[in-house]
């Protein structure tokens, strides 16, 4: 099992439209700030279990955990620049993606 270094959230792509989604407390959210945060290894494992369940239920695909930091407002922000891109949208088209209000930011 990999060493648990940072809080994590579960990221996936929605099956029907491919949009990036985040596992929240009551299902998949389109806004990463509503993601459920794993602060310990066993919580991360639980997120993964839920992710596998929803892969099997054909809700989501390409599910994985991403390291985050927690802001003063309690919201998670991905640590890696790849996931930072995924929670916003293309940096060269600020009029597209979550940053433009497609889904929610």
């Amino acid at each position: 099992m990999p060493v648990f270094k940072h809080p994590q959230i579960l990221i996936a792509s929605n099956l029907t439209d491919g949009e990036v989604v985040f596992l929240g407390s009551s299902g998949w959210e389109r806004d990463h700030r509503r993601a459920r945060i794993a602060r310990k290894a066993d919580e991360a494992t639980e997120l993964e279990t839920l992710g596998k369940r929803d892969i099997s239920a054909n809700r989501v695909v390409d599910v994985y955990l991403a390291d985050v930091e927690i802001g003063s407002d309690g919201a998670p922000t991905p640590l890696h620049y790849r996931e930072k891109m995924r929670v916003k949208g293309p940096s060269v088209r600020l009029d597209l993606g979550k940053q433009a209000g497609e889904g929610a930011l």
Partner: protein
Amino acid sequence: MTAVDLRVAQRPNAPMTTYRYDEYDSAFVRERVAEFREQVNRRLSGALTEEEFRPFRLMNGLYLQLHAYMLRVAIPYGTLTARQMRRLADIADKWDRGYGHFTTRQNLQYNWPKLVDTPDILESLADVEMHAIQTSGNCIRNVTADHFAGVAPDEIEDPRPTAEFLRQWSSLHSEFSFLPRKFKIAVTGAEHDRAAILVHDIGLRIVKNDTGEIGYQVVVGGGLGRSPFIGKVVGDFVPREDLLAFLEAILRVYNRFGRRDNKYKARVKILVHEKGIDEIRAAVEAEFAAMDRSAFDHDPEEFERIAAFFAPPPYESLPATSASLRAAKLETPAFANFVDVNVGAHKIPGYAIVTVSLKPIGGVPGDATSDQMRVLADASERFGFGELRVSHEQNIILPHVKQDDLFALWSMLDAASLATANAGLVSDIISCPGLDYCSLATARSIPIAQAISKRFSDMSRQRRIGKLGVKISGCINACGHHHVGAIGILGLEKKGQESYQITLGGDPTFSASIGEILGPGVTAEQVPDVVEHLVDYYLAEREEGEAFIDTWRRIGHARFKDVLRREGEDGADI
């Protein structure tokens, strides 16, 4: 009336400049759409898992990317009709975000389609004789060709009939649908290589032998990606009647001996490199000699039937030069610059080849809005027999424009922000989508292209610099062809940050070479400075008429490395 004439008569607005589907082709594509619709339905119902569905969606060009699905539409040998370009625009508006991205393999990518809409998109493409078949997967991909095919003065033969011949041979080829890895073929019929054939799995160069017979020089094992190689000649002169059998023999040798244990070593270039071209040639020749070639008997009538679709349009008899063009150039300097940079010689007197740059200063290389696509379609109908081409440099070509019409065309393009006069110059940058869209990318590439483009925004400076190929990839897969850029830029991840490795001396033409690494990686912010220092050094060192690559070859890589080291010591931020 021949069958071809009849088909054209039934479609009065259809130009005779590209292949048109017959009943078999139409039925084949429609069946594939229906099949994929069923596969999508089974996926949505849960009858297919993602693991089961993935090969099906990839075979239909549908990827899952960073923000959404991505659909890659095939544009065979880069040739489009106005009607097809309009349909691409309509699809962008109806099912995507109002734009498309033209790629280095002469395809078009939509960045935001929904899985549930994809069958309808494919149906809409089928209406205009287009599809996305074999734009992904370990099969023979879209066959690419010289974007000046049929109109270039240096051409021996139009490569598109050969490319179409190969497309029909390779489409759903039962033996080659599950190759060790993807397989790319490019064809040129000209003395100058504009199709980068030496960096394809198979490159075909149409040649004439001493008796004037047309045949093919066949090159195998070229490629970019993680391990770049220049292709090697496996057949010096393959007669046309043997072409399919010879390629079949190559693919069989690859299919049999290509590695399947390691995807990074599975391309034919690795097989050629590990075995050596002599052993590969012997294996291909042995397979060719042993195989039942009756299945590949050349059918000259069928080849001629296909070639007839690419017959020249009804050109007018015109003087070699245009008085009105000369006058307009004198009157409008911006137009003169456009003509000098973006307009090329045509084999027919009085006509010209126009490159429409999709690289506005600070823009996204290869992107066109749906409105721009419609302008291009209109322009092609008004000025160029309704035909367009997509170049592997991610630009659009209008291949048959009367010189007398150039000013009116330029005015139309200029009004649509499509008249950037930078074809082949430093801001005409090839760039993959990079980490702004691509799930494989390790760094962004588009913002790097934009920053370099802005740094050289002075167009007179660009013209003074002259031809210079800058090519950027956002990962080692090298979709942005950085290995063959005179200046190549590769985006990587280094300690959790985007980092850019610069290479010099790449060349995609018949004098092909793979770029050499300049030094340690630099940050995104440093890249424009580095490029500017390299260009300034080239300007200081070049001799009369020397392009960047020529100066680099003459004075050597070390001198360019040295200048960067000195600049760094002097306090430059590099």
